[in-house]
C-alpha cells in the first residue's frame, strides 16, 4: 500500500482512541504512527489498546513489529508467541518465531514454526529460503536425523534446492548458512529486511521480494537503530534500548539526587546489619542505579540487576494491565540464589531489595518498606 491514510482518517482515529483507548481505531492509528516514524507513540498506543483488547491478534502482531523495529527481538518474539496462542494458524507469528529461533541457533523450534508457516502459506519465498537454510545447516552439522524428521513431519513443504531459488531471485544472496552461524553478531541486513519484520536470517533476495509485496521501505533511521541494536536479549536492556547505560555505578549518579550529603552507595547501609539482607538498589526508569548496591554470593550484582529489573517490572506492569488486575504495586521473585522484591517508588523510580533465599516473605516486605523510607530520605536530601 503506497498511499497512507489521510489527515481526516488520522483525526477520526485519534478522536475515537481519545474517547476509548480500546477502540479498534488504535490499530490503524498506531500503524500510521509507525509508518510516520513515530515509533514510540505507536508503541504507547498499541500497549494501551492491548490493555483493553488483550485478545487482539492484529494488535499483538503490530506490537511485535514495533518491538522489532526498536531492536527488542525478545519482546517481539513474546508477542508472536502470544499471537500464535490466540491464533494457532497465524502465518506472521510462526514466520516471526521461526526466524527468531533460527537466528538464535534453536533449530528444532525454528523448524517447528517455519514448517507451520509453510503449511499456512506454502508459497512464501522467505519461509522456503529459511527452511532450506535450516535443512542445509542441519545436514552440515550432522543433524541428518533432524533433517529427515523435518522432511517427514506433518506436511513438511517440498523444498527446492536453495541454489535454484537464489538464481531465480535475480541477486546473489549472502551465504545464508554463514549468516545463521553468526546470528549472534550485529545485523548486516538492509533496511528492507528490518521492515519485513521476521526476516533476520532470510537471504536478501527473498526479503526484498516479500517486502515489495507487504510493506513500504523502512525509514533509514529506524533501520539503523535496529541494525545497531546489541544482540543481547531485550530483558537485559533498559527500556530505552541503550544497553550501555544500564550498569552505571552509584558513584556515577552521586551528583544527582542525594547530593546533599548521603553517599549513594551507602544509602541502605542501616539494613545491612540484618543477616538475610543482600542489598538494595534505587533505579530510575532506564535501569540506571541511583543508589545502593547488591552482593550475592560475595559478588556484586548491582549492575546486572539494574539492567534486568526495569524491563522485568515493565513486563509485569503490562501483564497486570492485560489481566485487568489493576496497577502493579510490587513483585516478589524467588530464584535459586536470592529473593528479590521490586516496587515502584515514585514517578518512574524503582526500588529493589535482595535477600537470602528462604527469607520469610513478610520480613522481605517489611524490609522493602524500610528501604523505601531510606530511599525517599536520600531523594529528599538531593532536592535540598
Amino acid at each position, binding site marked *: 500500500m503506497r498511499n497512507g491514510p489521510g489527515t481526516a482518517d488520522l483525526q477520526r482515529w485519534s478522536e475515537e482512541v481519545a474517547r476509548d483507548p480500546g477502540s479498534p481505531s488504535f490499530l490503524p492509528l498506531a500503524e500510521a504512527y509507525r509508518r510516520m516514524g513515530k515509533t514510540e507513540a505507536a508503541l504507547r498506543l498499541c500497549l494501551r489498546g492491548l490493555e483493553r483488547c*488483550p*485478545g487482539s491478534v492484529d494488535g499483538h502482531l503490530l506490537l511485535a513489529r514495533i518491538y522489532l523495529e526498536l531492536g527488542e527481538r*525478545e519482546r517481539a518474539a*513474546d508477542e508472536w*508467541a*502470544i499471537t500464535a*496462542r*490466540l491464533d494457532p494458524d497465524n502465518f506472521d507469528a510462526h514466520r516471526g518465531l521461526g526466524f527468531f529461533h533460527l537466528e538464535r541457533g534453536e533449530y528444532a523450534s525454528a523448524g517447528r514454526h517455519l514448517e507451520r508457516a509453510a503449511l499456512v502459506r506454502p508459497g512464501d519465498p522467505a519461509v522456503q529460503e529459511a527452511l532450506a537454510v535450516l535443512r542445509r545447516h542441519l545436514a552440515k552439522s550432522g543433524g541428518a536425523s533432524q533433517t529427515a524428521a523435518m522432511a517427514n513431519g506433518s506436511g513438511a513443504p517440498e523444498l527446492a534446492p536453495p541454489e535454484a531459488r537464489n538464481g531465480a531471485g535475480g541477486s546473489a544472496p549472502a551465504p545464508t548458512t554463514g549468516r545463521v552461524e553468526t546470528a549472534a553478531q550485529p545485523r548486516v541486513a538492509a533496511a528492507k529486511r528490518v521492515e519485513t519484520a521476521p526476516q533476520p536470517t532470510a537471504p536478501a533476495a527473498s526479503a526484498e521480494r516479500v517486502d515489495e509485496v507487504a510493506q513500504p521501505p523502512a525509514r533509514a533511521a529506524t533501520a539503523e537503530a535496529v541494525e545497531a541494536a546489541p544482540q543481547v*536479549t531485550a*530483558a*537485559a536492556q533498559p527500556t530505552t534500548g541503550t544497553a550501555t547505560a544500564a550498569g552505571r555505578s552509584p558513584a556515577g549518579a552521586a551528583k544527582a539526587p542525594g547530593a546533599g550529603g548521603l553517599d549513594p552507595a551507602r544509602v541502605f547501609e542501616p539494613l545491612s546489619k540484618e543477616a538475610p539482607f543482600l542489598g538494595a538498589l534505587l533505579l530510575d526508569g532506564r535501569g540506571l542505579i541511583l543508589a545502593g548496591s547488591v552482593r*550475592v554470593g560475595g*559478588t556484586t*550484582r548491582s549492575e*546486572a*540487576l539494574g*539492567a*534486568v*529489573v526495569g*524491563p*522485568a517490572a515493565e*513486563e*509485569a506492569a503490562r*501483564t*497486570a494491565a*492485560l*489481566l*485487568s*488486575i*489493576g*496497577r*502493579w*504495586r*510490587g*513483585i*516478589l*521473585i*524467588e*530464584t*535459586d*540464589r*536470592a529473593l*528479590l522484591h521490586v516496587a515502584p517508588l515514585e514517578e518512574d523510580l524503582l526500588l529493589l531489595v535482595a535477600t537470602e533465599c528462604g527469607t520469610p*516473605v513478610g520480613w522481605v516486605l517489611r524490609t522493602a518498606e524500610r528501604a523505601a523510607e531510606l530511599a525517599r530520605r536520600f531523594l529528599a536530601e538531593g532536592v535540598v
Partner: protein
Amino acid sequence: MSDAVASTLDRLSHVPGVRSALIVDAEAGVPVASELGMGASATAVAALTASLFRRTDEAVRQAALGGLGSFQLETEEGHLVVAGRRELIVVVVADRDAQLGLIRLEVDRAVEALQ
C-alpha cells in the same frame, strides 16, 4: 486431565480469594487445565503468564541468580502467583485480600505434585 492435575487444581481453586487457577505449559504458553473466574480467558491468562515467567527466568539467569522458582505480582486489585520448575507452571489469580500464605503453600504443593 490426570487425577493429580485435577486434584491439584481443585485444591488451589478452593482457597479463599482465588479467582482463577491454571496449570500452564510454560514453553507453549497454553493452558493444560484451568478453573477460571468469570470473564477470564484461559488462553490469554496462560499466554501472558507463561511469557512473563519465561522472560523473568531469563532475566534472573542473566543476572547470575540461578533459575526462577516463583513470581508473585501484587497489584491494586489482586495478586498473580506463578511458580514452577519444569515445563508445567502453576498460575493463580487472587483477590487483593486473599490469604496469600495459604495460596503460596498450596502453590508450592502443586508445584511438587507436578514434578
